[in-house]
């Protein structure tokens, strides 16, 4: 591991640790409204000032980070599992199954993601708690985000299917699920890991996009998306630089994630 990756790893871990310690670091909480001090500048009481309804921005950034950083990997896990199931199996089975899976994947990739997300979200029951809404949002992201990974996995599995060691295993009488789970899937691991790590920033950004449209995590729960929305209409950065905190954090974390992934993993 080179120095840049080590630094990126430290940054991601540090951000995760700080966000997990939000209860202690920001006792004001993310929902309490200090209505006598809306849109306040940084002070000892509010390190990053307050938002438009007087909520402590530092607390909201920490809790928002916690939500985005914990749930984006969960969504990535769901999408990678689906990709392994659909892409991996199709590649392993080959023939008509592979063509069908690729067609379905291409169709899924051609769908307008954002509109699909908006439509799916509009169908959800209204009386869901903020916590449930955040889980549902990321779960939907996970369910809809498998296609690109599945395409990569199907190609890798297809290559493995015709590899010497799989042919040898077949010749030894091994076939069906056992061949898939014992020989194919373990060899797909590097691709799966790479797809998992690549998906995390994608889901963070997807949630941020939804949040900017006001369709992300339900109030009063914060997320990076809803925090970035505060920047809407901001004309001068010099006057209220502290409002850029969630954006800077997003850039730092995204850069760290990209640095963490080596070229080999990204192209695996």
């Amino acid at each position, binding site marked *: 591991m080179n120095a840049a990756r080590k630094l990126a790893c430290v940054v991601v871990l540090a951000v995760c640790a700080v966000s997990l310690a939000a209860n202690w670091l920001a006792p004001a909480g993310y929902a309490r409204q200090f209505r006598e001090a809306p849109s306040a500048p940084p002070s000892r009481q509010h390190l990053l000032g307050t938002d438009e309804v007087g909520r402590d921005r530092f607390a909201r950034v920490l809790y928002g980070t916690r939500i985005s950083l914990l749930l984006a990997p969960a969504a990535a896990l769901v999408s990678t599992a689906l990709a392994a199931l659909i892409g991996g199996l199709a590649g392993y089975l080959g023939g008509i199954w592979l063509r069908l899976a690729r067609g379905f994947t291409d169709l899924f990739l051609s769908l307008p993601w954002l509109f699909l997300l908006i439509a799916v979200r509009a169908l959800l029951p*209204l*009386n869901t708690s903020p916590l449930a809404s955040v889980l549902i949002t990321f779960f939907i992201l996970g369910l809809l985000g498998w296609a690109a990974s599945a395409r990569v996995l199907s190609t890798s599995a297809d290559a493995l299917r015709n590899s010497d060691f799989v042919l040898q295993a077949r010749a030894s009488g091994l076939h069906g699920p056992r061949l898939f789970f014992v020989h194919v899937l373990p060899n797909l691991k590097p691709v799966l890991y790479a797809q998992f790590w690549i998906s995390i920033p994608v889901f963070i950004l997807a949630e941020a996009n939804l949040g900017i449209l006001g369709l992300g995590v*339900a*109030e*009063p729960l914060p997320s990076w998306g809803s925090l970035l929305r505060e920047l809407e209409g901001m*004309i001068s950065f010099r006057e209220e630089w502290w409002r850029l905190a969630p954006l800077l954090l997003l850039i730092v974390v995204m850069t760290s994630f990209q640095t963490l992934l080596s070229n080999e993993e990204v192209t695996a």
Partner: protein
Amino acid sequence: MNYRRASLRLLAGYALLFLTLTSGSAFAQNGGELRFCLRSEPKTFDPLLVDDDSSLSIRYLTGGVLVRVNRHTQELEPELAESWKVSQDGKQIAFKLRRGISFSDGTQFSADDVAFTMQRLMDPALHSSTGDAFRSGSGAVSTKIIAPDQISVTFPAPLAGLDRLFDQVAIMSAHSPKKEAAVLGPFMVAEYKAGSSVLLRRNPNYWKKDSQGRRLPYLDSIRLDIQPNRDVEMLRFKRGELDLINVIDSDYFDRLAATSLQLAHDAGPSLDADFMWFNQVASAPIPEYKRAWFRSTNFRRAISQAINRDDLSRVVFNGHAQPAVGPVSPANKFWFNSKLKAEPYRPDAALKRLQADGFHLQNGALFDKGGNAVEFSIVTNAGSKPRERMAVMVQEDLGKLGIKVNVVTLDPPSLIERISQKFNYEAAMFGFRNVDLDPNGQMNIWLSSAENHAWNPLQKSPETAWEAEIDRLMRAQASTADPKKRKESFDRVQEIVAEQAPFIYLVNQNALSAVSSAVEGANPGILSPQTFWNAERLTLNASARASR
């Protein structure tokens, strides 16, 4: 020879002096170009088909009307009609027209044009929303030309506030081959670049003159840039590329006021209101116990009392809003019921009301008499930051009563489908943009059979006694021409709404606008169009004229 030369010099000197002294007249010929933005593409230039804000602005600037509601005094003033008279039964209006007026293309204006306009406006095939306001009953609208400058229009049934409705009717030429391009207003459409801009030029035949006999309008032209992005609009205004912003948000307003206080104008409470309501539709897919809460007057009043409207005004709108009283804003000078006051923030009283209905607190959470925890969702449209902030504050206020509120923001099409077709929601928060001072404009809200009777629309017969009473009062005020009787009826409607709280009114936003220091004569008001209602009398200062 020398004498002649000296005489010529003297003559030239006099001519120069004359030109200097009459520079005011010269100024009227070179008023410069006013610039501001339309926030969307105008859908039509036909004044009778106007249905969107951008087309409305163009109609206001180009259309000549018989009478005009003064946007400042809210009084009706003569325009193309010198005088008018409404019959006692409220079915007929007679106009005496001004003589010697021409359309922008030189065609003479006469009673023929008024008759042509009214016949076209009332043609059902035209589907004019302006015409809909004149539909009082079954039967045709007839016009009678008494003389070239006199005409009467008769309607099949009485129309309350009949004369004010003509503020929206831009007269079209019956004879001009240019059709809607021939106008009687101060400006005419000179150029339209789709997606980019509309250029209006001074109507050379405009009939009005100022007190010094100078022909209006002062401006040479108005350039309307089509710009939906408000950030860009504000940046361009700050750079001096735009002269007006008709309506701005409180955030933008404060930012502008911080740097250039004299450019930011707060005209006080507007006619617009933000409010919320509960779904009372019998067939709505919500649990029966929740429907029972929403149909309880005590529950609705308690919710109303538990909302801190002062905080909403102060925090969400930075003080540029007032706690709302009811369906009529205090800005509506004639129709507002001044006996009514905004519901004060009284959480203790709210809890007592709820307890009267069998609700009780248990471990900080509120339960109904059946043991159901009080929890509901408020839907509102995604993208409206002020409304989302209000919903979050209402969530916190009601949380103090032990009520759990889930705020749900939806994209507008999904939201409209839920609240007006499927009725699959519990509570909704919305805004009402009121452009009409007269309560007749609210008939489609208050009649229980109306489509926009949001809490329980399209009722075959009123489901509650108070809705039946509102129906009766609204019909009574609409069927008489006597303003006093109409006011009495509508005052009572406002009282019933305050007592029953079918809509929980939250705030009336202030009318905020921005006017560049280059513009002279601007007097922003609360009625649309806020900044350019007196466009014919607006001028640009010398430096702005020189730079354009």
